[in-house]
């Protein structure tokens, strides 16, 4: 594991320092910022006609200038659509679907984890049994089956993934929350007669924040991969939507003639996933550093 060599900044100077104290987190945030700027920029600069194809310039390689003078920096696909614009147009699909899904995952996972940690007896047994059972099932299989019934499209896809993938989060939250529930301050709150929801939300949840952030970053990446996989299998975003998985799926038939059709969306997916993994690693490292600082 690459460990950041940046020295832990003294608390007083934190605001003056550029960066977060973790090289990985910095890199990840920069990469992700580029992606998000591209996402925002497209509403300003991308005209709807840019996504249309031009059949006279089908399957053209990168740096191709069409007869009408349009320049295609990374080439065109089988319908003569500019791949760069299509990758930009795919951002709201790929990141949007996995973004909605990751919010569902974080909320449901935390909620179920807290329920399992707070209650004892039959409720905990059911929660643990259910989570253990669902976690073993490859969630691509579950997602495939559910999507087959509920259909494709932005909301069916994102909600399906959100409602299926939360189990791993809830297992981690459960373990952490049980640890926190044994702390003295929680006991004190209980003795004061504080309502259980208040304890869970105001006393336990803040302690779980670092864990939730780390898990959310990693799950964002995982869900992005799953979303692309589903689209790749022809069961994700609608067929004509420029989702990255759809673009990869299109590229399979043209691997011989137009390999750039595969490399362009692949680069987009890999960049997004790596930046999210960096962010997750960075958060994890920061929280470890803080824990160590508290001990010392």
């Amino acid at each position: 594991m690459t460990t950041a060599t940046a020295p832990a900044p003294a608390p007083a100077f934190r605001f003056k320092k550029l960066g977060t104290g973790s090289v990985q987190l910095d890199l990840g945030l920069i990469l992700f910022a580029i992606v998000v700027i591209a996402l925002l920029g497209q509403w300003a600069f991308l005209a709807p006609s840019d996504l249309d194809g031009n059949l006279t310039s089908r399957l053209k390689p990168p740096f191709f200038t069409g007869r009408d003078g349009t320049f295609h920096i990374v080439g065109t696909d089988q319908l003569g659509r500019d791949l760069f614009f299509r990758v930009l147009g795919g951002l709201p699909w790929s990141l949007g679907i996995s973004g909605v899904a990751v919010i569902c995952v974080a909320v449901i996972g935390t909620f179920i984890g807290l329920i399992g940690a707070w209650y004892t007896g039959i409720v905990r047994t059911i929660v643990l049994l259910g989570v253990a059972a669902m976690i073993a099932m490859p969630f691509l299989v579950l997602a495939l089956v559910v999507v087959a019934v509920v259909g494709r499209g932005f909301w069916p896809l994102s909600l399906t993934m959100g409602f299926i993938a939360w189990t791993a989060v809830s297992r981690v939250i459960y373990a952490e929350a049980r640890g926190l529930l044994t702390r003295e301050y929680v006991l004190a709150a209980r003795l004061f007669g504080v309502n259980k929801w208040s304890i869970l939300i105001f006393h336990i949840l803040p302690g779980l924040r670092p864990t939730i952030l780390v898990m959310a970053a990693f799950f964002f990446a995982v869900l992005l991969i799953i979303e692309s996989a589903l689209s790749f299998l022809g069961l994700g975003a609608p067929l004509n939507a420029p989702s990255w998985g759809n673009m990869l799926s299109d590229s399979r038939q043209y691997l011989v003639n137009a390999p750039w059709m595969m490399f362009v969306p692949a680069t987009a997916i890999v960049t997004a996933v790596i930046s999210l993994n960096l962010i997750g690693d960075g958060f994890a490292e920061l929280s470890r550093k803080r824990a160590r600082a508290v001990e010392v």
Partner: protein
Amino acid sequence: MTDTTDQQPAAAPAAPKGGTRGDAETIPVTQQTMQTLTKRVLELIFLLFFISTLLFFLLRLTGDPAAVLAGETGDQEQLELIRKQYGLDKPLVVQYGVFLYKMVQGDFGNSLANAQDALGLVMERLPTSFTLVIIAFTANLIISIPLGAWLGSRPDRTGRKLAATAVFIAQGIPGYITGLILIQIFAVELRWLPSIGNQGPLSWIMPAITLAAFQAPQVVRVISANVAEAMREDYIRTARANGAGFNTLLWRHALKNAMLGATALIGAQVSFLVGGSIITEVIFAWPGLGRLLVTSVQTLDFPVVQAAVFMIAIFVYFAITMTDIVFLFIDPRLRRQRA
């Protein structure tokens, strides 16, 4: 893993006094094996019940199952026939009861595509998928364990830092992209390897690498982190003071400990591999269960979908339980009862 399994007979007799740290609550291995089995079987039943209920109600909530069963070509007469045949004209509760009853008997109905027995179709494909998963699983362990140990043994050296960065980047590359790149290089450009179907050992290489690539980077990172941690432990220092060489320290002492710490990960691998095998099978036109599942999902062939999902669940549970039990025998630390 191959190394540690050899020690299973040696470890088993030691079981009754496994925890020598003065804890009286050590329970016999056989008893704990039974407990694990019971727990896993319970989970499996819960899962199968959950999946079948989910499918049953989703199928009825989102539309007319008869229309789905009839496919796009079904006319009114056919719909009536299907409703009669599948008992869809009866009340929902009765349907659900019949559905569960048939499920328990392993009767999934016939495939809508070619009227073959759905379970039979699935069982036919199972060995092909199994081969792929086993090859990839083995390849994964053969590559990632030594690599992880090497990276974790001296994590501060420049070469290993670079290698660790490469592993990190590899972790960001989804398996289906690896697969497409492999096809592009070895099938399209170099024409060395066949990219379609199951045509003997040569055609296993690319699917197996693709499938292994789904999870290998993660395993490498976990093992290297575990090894790095183990190398800082006191017992390693003691062994070193006793004159053990670096290689002995790493491969015999630290790695063994790190591997045992990775139990949960190895178990979870199976689930990931099965998920990944679906995409891999589609990319390489591998005639396995995953491709059958995808085609049946695409054509809405629900009896086959259901049978396939059931078999996948059973397969994953079988594999996880086996890992649990094997590690129970290998790792004395797992034998103590956790309150």
